[in-house]
């Protein structure tokens, strides 16, 4: 079987699933079945970085400024706030990224990873 069904799904609570079942009566007969809900998995920081940030901020791209260098601990709070504000509000040419695209949980982990310079090597290789 070559056809496939996949889905990075968000967690649906039991109440949500129940109300969905109730709504089922309203649906057209051939609605594609909703696969069983699975636990939402926040993407790893490296995955978020690869899917979104690296396209502009990797060193060989140089579209956006370098963001992968480690920061001294004294600057962590300020740098973290700066990243959070920039991601959520955008800045100049950089678009804003919504919670629906990068969840708060994913953003927190991304900020941690960036502050400790976890992607510094990756950026250089790229």
């Amino acid at each position, binding site marked *: 079987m070559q*056809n496939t069904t996949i*889905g990075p799904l968000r967690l649906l609570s039991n109440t949500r699933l129940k109300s969905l079942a109730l*709504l089922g009566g309203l649906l057209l007969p051939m609605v594609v079945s909703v696969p069983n809900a699975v636990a939402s998995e926040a993407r790893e920081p490296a995955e978020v970085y690869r899917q*979104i940030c690296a396209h502009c901020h990797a060193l060989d791209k140089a579209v956006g400024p370098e963001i992968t260098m480690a920061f001294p601990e004294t600057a962590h709070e300020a740098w973290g706030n700066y990243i959070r504000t920039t991601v959520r509000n955008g800045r100049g040419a950089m678009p804003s990224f919504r919670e629906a*695209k990068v969840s708060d949980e994913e953003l927190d982990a991304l900020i941690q990873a960036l502050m400790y310079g976890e992607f510094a090597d990756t950026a250089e290789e790229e």
Partner: protein
Amino acid sequence: MSTAPRILPKGVAEADFDTALGRFREILDADSVLTESDQLAPYTKIMMAGDDADYIPSGALLPTTAEQVQEIARTCNEFKVPIWTISTGKNLGYGSAAPGETGQVILDLHRMNRIINVNPDVCTALIEPGVTYQQLYDYIQEKGYKLWLDPPAPSAIAGPVGNTLDRGVGYTPYGEHFMFQCGMEVVLANGEMVRTGMGGIENSSSWQVFKWGYGPYIDGLFTQSNYGIVTKMGLWLMPEPPAYRPFLIQYQDPEDIEEIVEVLRPLRISQIIPNAVVIVHTLWDAGTHVVRKDYYDGTDSIPREAIERIKRDEGIGEWNVYAALYGTPEQIEVNWNIVEQAFSKSGKAKIMYGEEAEKRGGGFEYRSALMKGDMNLQEFGLYNWRGGGGSMWFAPVSQAKGSETKDQTALAQQILGKYGFDYVAEYIVGWRDMHHVIDLLYNRQDPDETQRAYDCFAELIDEFAKRGYGLYRTNTEFMEQVAGTFGEPLRNVHTALKNALDPNGILSPGKSGIRQ
């Protein structure tokens, strides 16, 4: 605590809005109904020359299923709450993820991100609106399918549904996205759901392969419109060809644009060159990786002398044609000879591929990626050209005829020059049409420059329309003006359809200038 007055949807009483929000919280999880200003901040960043205060949502709803979307539509109808639908919400330079006007509630479908089906035999996909090109790309790679996507330049962060619904374009042979869309599932304003094409037949296996279905074909009604909320869309995927040859042709004289288009048109119409070719002006080709102030510091439009220096120093032509051949190695050799012969006739063209093209100073690497459907955001470098984050796409359509290209280029340069902006432009060559895409780049931090950009854009629309040129798409600030250029009879039909399908005017009021 904020003292700013609360933003409400136009014409909706506070108590009704609160009741509607309560209903939304029942339909969705409470944390999927956003009303706090910090949660809504990402929906307020715009690049166009409009007033920030005109584009602030009163809330955002983040459903995960089509059934929730149906319930939301019913609730909106009951309380006359207007919603502005976005999918991946990266309509950058066209209004981004912001509402069409202040007070509308954003219906953000990004969390509806299931890839329902990819069929490697008939080369189709069925996806939800929140799926990004990157997500679909990764999925296809993971499965090992030999299928290509056709992303627009913001590729990784944008998505096929939103892009296709705004009738966007990419750069492979599948570049005209709406042409390669097949079958939709749509939630109407009254909450009913309809499937287009073959989708109404129970257990149809041809929903994603036969576009037309039976009776009037209606998919087009849901593009650049506000007649429904698309919750699933089918699209065709290109089979990976055995061989691929991207190439670059440079011309040095501004007048050469006429020859380029005349030589290209027959090759494009006969599909010798099958992809959405671009003819890129110096300033765009340089602008993706060169900073303006390295060549010119003035605030007026960059002078010819500086453009000539850029061409010389960066190895860029006045016009840079990026195109590609696809097929077996034998087919490519045959077609390459035809292309070479056609472009060699006048002796003006420099024709290159492979290493030679890579070494030129323009965008060969990223263009080659986009022409084979890879993810690449290099084009965002354009925003470093002038800085300040202001951008509006002015994109009039023309026939693929050299005389029209010459006329459009001269007119655009003259109007942009009058307002002190640069001609950062490319032509995207469709089958027999061209989108003349001009990035009106300006410093959005500077109110005077922003006002100039606004005036310039308005004049471009009017002056182009006077010569018979209309836009293929526009940003939310200018939708009304552009709708005016297409004439009253068309507007009347649009309004009649709106009244029939959405009598309370709850879906994306103002989209393409359409209201009930």
